[in-house]
């Protein structure tokens, strides 16, 4: 059952990403409606108008009703509820040197979810993750074609330094600088610029650089080592309740989970820590269904090698095929 969560996650990621493309078009459509000038639109603009009208069939007054869903994952309105990224709140409080409560409260729901589910935003919502994981697949294809792919590893704690220095620089300059280097914020913004304002801005260049970094320096390098938002989510989700647990009795030590993990974690040796984003890729790939979600505030201590395929006389496994040749 939990094996299919990874597919659900891809549905979620694609939905968020397609919303980020749809919302700017809806905003453009609203401005056409506000202008009351359908006859004066260019043919391409008329096409946008018609498609958007067709996509929103039960909306009587688009100018007002389409305001229900606005914004990006960085900060937005969802059916009247204002939600913001916790990094936006921390960054703004640092840059403004003051706490603006109406804004801080918009981050309450994301923070609660992060405390319970850890870095789930990174795995299930983040529009940059969508592109970064596709980028990982591209990297795998390039590797199959014998092209050089970056395999370098750095210290994962580097991103906490990025978060800290980003906040200090925001504090000194009085400008929310973390917003300029946080990929999901950049993606939401740049898609809007490209659709409504006529072209990608400078943030798109930065994002392409991070894609190249992931491809030619280290796999998922930006999320693993540099992302300030990922650092904040990791800290908030340190004592998360939803964790992945390895059932040592049916683990066959195949190492597939460790190889698939985008975040350089080691599920096969019970190493998840605060960095795990609950993406469920390891659950999906496990050939013996040894990994599953569990409710606990800390990880299992290291359980040693898996029992499946080894001769343990007290062990009797039912329902799973034993493979004697897997060490």
């Amino acid at each position, binding site marked *: 059952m939990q094996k299919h969560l990874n597919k659900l996650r891809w549905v979620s990621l694609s939905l968020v990403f397609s919303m980020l493309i749809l919302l700017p078009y809806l905003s453009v459509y609203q401005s056409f409606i506000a202008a009351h000038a359908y006859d004066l639109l260019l043919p391409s603009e008329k096409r946008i108008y018609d498609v958007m009208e067709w996509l929103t069939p039960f909306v009587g007054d688009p100018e007002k009703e389409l305001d229900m869903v*606005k914004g990006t994952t960085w900060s937005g309105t969802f059916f009247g509820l204002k939600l913001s990224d916790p990094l936006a709140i921390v960054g703004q409080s640092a840059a403004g040197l003051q706490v603006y409560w109406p804004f801080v409260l918009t981050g309450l729901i994301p923070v609660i979810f992060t405390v319970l589910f850890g870095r789930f935003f990174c795995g299930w919502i983040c529009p940059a993750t969508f592109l970064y994981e596709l980028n990982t697949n591209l990297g795998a294809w390039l590797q199959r074609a014998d092209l050089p792919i970056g395999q370098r590893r750095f210290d994962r704690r580097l991103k906490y330094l990025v978060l800290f220095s980003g906040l200090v620089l925001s504090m000194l300059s009085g400008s929310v600088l973390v917003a300029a280097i946080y990929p999901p914020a950049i993606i939401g913004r740049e898609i809007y610029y490209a659709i409504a*304002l006529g072209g990608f801005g400078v943030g798109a260049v930065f994002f392409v650089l991070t894609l190249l970094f992931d491809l030619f320096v280290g796999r998922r390098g930006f999320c693993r080592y540099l992302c300030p938002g990922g650092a904040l989510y990791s800290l908030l989700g340190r004592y998360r309740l939803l964790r992945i647990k390895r059932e040592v009795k049916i683990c066959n030590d195949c190492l597939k989970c460790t190889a698939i993990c985008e975040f350089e974690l080691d599920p096969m040796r019970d190493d998840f820590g605060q960095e795990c984003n609950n993406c469920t890729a390891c659950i999906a790939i496990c050939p013996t269904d040894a990994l599953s979600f569990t409710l606990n505030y800390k990880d299992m201590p290291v359980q040693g090698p898996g029992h499946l395929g080894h001769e343990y006389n007290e062990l009797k496994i039912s329902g799973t095929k034993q493979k004697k040749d897997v060490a």
Partner: protein
Amino acid sequence: MERRAFLQDLIGTAAALVAPPFAQAKVTKHKPGMRYLRPPGALDEDQFLGRCIRCGQCGEACPNRCIKFFGTENGLLSYGIPYITPREQACILCMKCGDVCPTGAIKPVKRLAESILSEVDMGKARVDKSLCLSYQGKSCGVCYRACPLQDVAITVGWMEQPHVQAACVGCGLCERSCIQIPQAIKIIPNYS
């Protein structure tokens, strides 16, 4: 912003001891020579940069699509910050941007003449009499007719010569509508 000035001085002094050229580099808020407006109801420039989280919702809400966003042309600190170039597209004072702004960088202002007059201050129009047609004896009056706060923010006299009043909020519709090239009426932003 005393605390920030203190922090900057502290770092500046420390930097001056370690690396003198670094201390010379000053943080610039906007380039001299660039003239742009902030959305209506925006806080003062210093506070505005600290409040704005660059979410872009003001631009998305703007039905007139006059709110645009900086790349790096105004410095790195301005990346993603909203601005208005009135000559290209001016603000129609619909006040939707203040309602969607999550951080209050743009204050929510009711769409009523009194609240707009008292709370919005984007800048003030200034007439260049050597360019203005009405002052050259060719009665024009287009800026007066474009003004959403007619007779309060702008009045016309002999030959429809415009006189900007103190109540002008600086929406820029007069500058947008001016038929002279270059425009004879310009908004002087309130931060300059």
